[in-house]
């Protein structure tokens, strides 16, 4: 038994076969080293002129092409007839194509997404209630990192069919702060105060000017909108400082922010509603 295995190994490990193995090893090592070198130079030369997204696509295309060439060279060393393999691959391709319609749809969607340039690596997007920073835009899917540090993979087909909000496409954004103040407050004074707070906050842009809108007379008070512009990276600091300063200034000036409540009136100017007891007091009522 042992002798049979040994003779089998001797038949495989012939000088001719050893040369083939060495050649294959050389192809793999040199090929991968050459690929790494090319990828390094591509990244370095493209870094200044092209977006991260374009660099990623070029690098992936180069990697896949190089790996395909290495595979062909290895098969050639093994004396595998490429024509037969490619023929078989054609038939298999049709079968795989039918079986992987979703993947193909994703690939085509990916091509559209990349060419449309609706977003790129590093942008913040919102899709179906999920928001995060784009890590990569690939042919099959887009990978994002949410703000609570979760990895989310969104198929390209879904992105084509769904509304996608690119939060950081433009350099500046507007933060809309909805406020409700009591009916008794002086609207001019409140407007003046809000614009003063905005002017003093260094994160709020002076230009475009802040927006002040009296939205409507709501159920609980007068509803206002204050829209302040900020540079896209300053979202959190602008929101936190503005909210804090509005609350502090309102408290200091005695401006009431009403909470939801219900007041009953019998007319526009009236006394409180009178309550009258009808009938005798129940005996067991304490």
């Amino acid at each position, binding site marked *: 038994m042992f002798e049979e295995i040994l003779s089998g190994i001797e038949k495989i490990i012939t000088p001719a076969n050893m040369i083939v193995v060495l050649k294959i090893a050389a192809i793999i090592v040199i090929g991968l080293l050459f690929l790494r070198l090319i990828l390094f130079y591509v990244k370095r030369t493209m870094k200044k002129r092209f977006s991260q997204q374009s660099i990623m696509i070029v690098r992936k295309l180069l990697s896949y092409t190089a790996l395909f060439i290495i595979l062909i060279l290895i098969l050639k060393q093994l004396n595998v007839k490429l024509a037969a393999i490619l023929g078989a691959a054609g038939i298999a391709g049709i079968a795989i194509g039918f079986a992987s319609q979703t993947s193909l749809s994703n690939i085509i969607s990916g091509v559209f997404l990349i060419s449309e340039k609706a977003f790129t690596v590093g942008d913040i997007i919102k899709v179906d209630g999920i928001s995060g920073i784009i890590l990569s835009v690939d042919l099959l899917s887009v990978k994002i990192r949410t703000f609570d540090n979760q990895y989310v993979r969104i198929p390209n087909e879904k992105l084509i069919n769904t509304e996608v909000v690119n939060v950081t496409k433009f350099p500046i954004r507007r933060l809309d702060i909805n406020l409700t103040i009591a009916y008794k407050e002086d609207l001019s004074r409140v407007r003046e105060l809000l614009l003063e707070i905005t002017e003093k906050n*260094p*994160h*709020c842009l*002076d230009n*475009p000017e802040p927006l002040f809108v009296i939205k409507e007379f709501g159920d609980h008070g007068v509803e206002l909108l204050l829209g302040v512009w900020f540079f896209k990276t300053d979202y959190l600091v602008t929101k936190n400082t503005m909210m804090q300063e509005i609350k502090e200034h309102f408290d200091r000036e005695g401006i009431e922010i009403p909470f939801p409540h219900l007041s009953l009136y019998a007319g526009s100017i009236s006394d409180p509603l009178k309550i009258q007891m009808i009938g005798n007091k129940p005996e067991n009522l304490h």
Partner: protein
Amino acid sequence: MNMWDEFQIENGETINWQIGSLSLWMEHRDEEFLISQAYSDEDINVLSATQVRDHVDLPEDLSWNRYIVQDPSTKFQLVPALPDRAVVVSPEFPIKLATNSDVVFYMSIPVWVQIMAGNEKKALFKEIPSLVLSNTWFGDTMTGELCYALTTRALRKIEDHGDLRHRIICPVRILNLGSEPLDFQNLCVHVEHLMVFGGAEHLWSNDVSIIYRGDEQPSEIRYEDKMQYETECVILSSERVPSQKTIISKSFSFIKSFTAFD
């Protein structure tokens, strides 16, 4: 001691600088240097350096940053610099400049204080603005640049500035070669391309000339190498971003309001 001269801080010593609304403290404690700053509500015309005799004089709520250097006898220098971004100057009232006319405005820009450290070759230790300027945007909402906002009276005489020791005076000459009067409310000055000169009376930047040729054409901006208003002056800081002597750029903003809602 001259504000912008080299200095050393002995162990246990604390120095306080007042530069406009900025109060800056630097203390040498063993092998570390501690730096703290605070701002007053108003931009006061003051430029001074004093030794803090007693720690009781220091405000209680100061938060200190620790800096460590190899050599405790390191020399320091405060260097006045211009802001690190372009400044959008908004004169108090809109200005109209007739065609084929020119005017020089003297803009006073708050100093950015650079603390440099090192005995032979100095390196930037920390940078602090003497006045916290608000952000503003120059351009439309899709393209443009982030700048600092500066409201100024855009004075036409240096004397009108008075004794502005804590600010850098930037002379901007505007020449209107367009066919119509130039009506502007905002002016964007790329101060990161400007040097700071120390004169006997004021701090100056080099001259800026803006040649306006009409709405449809970009303005031509020239940065001169020299400062012509004081004879004896020295370069205190060089430009942050070197630029070509002449560049073509949009410098004026004519649209005042932006009223998009929903």
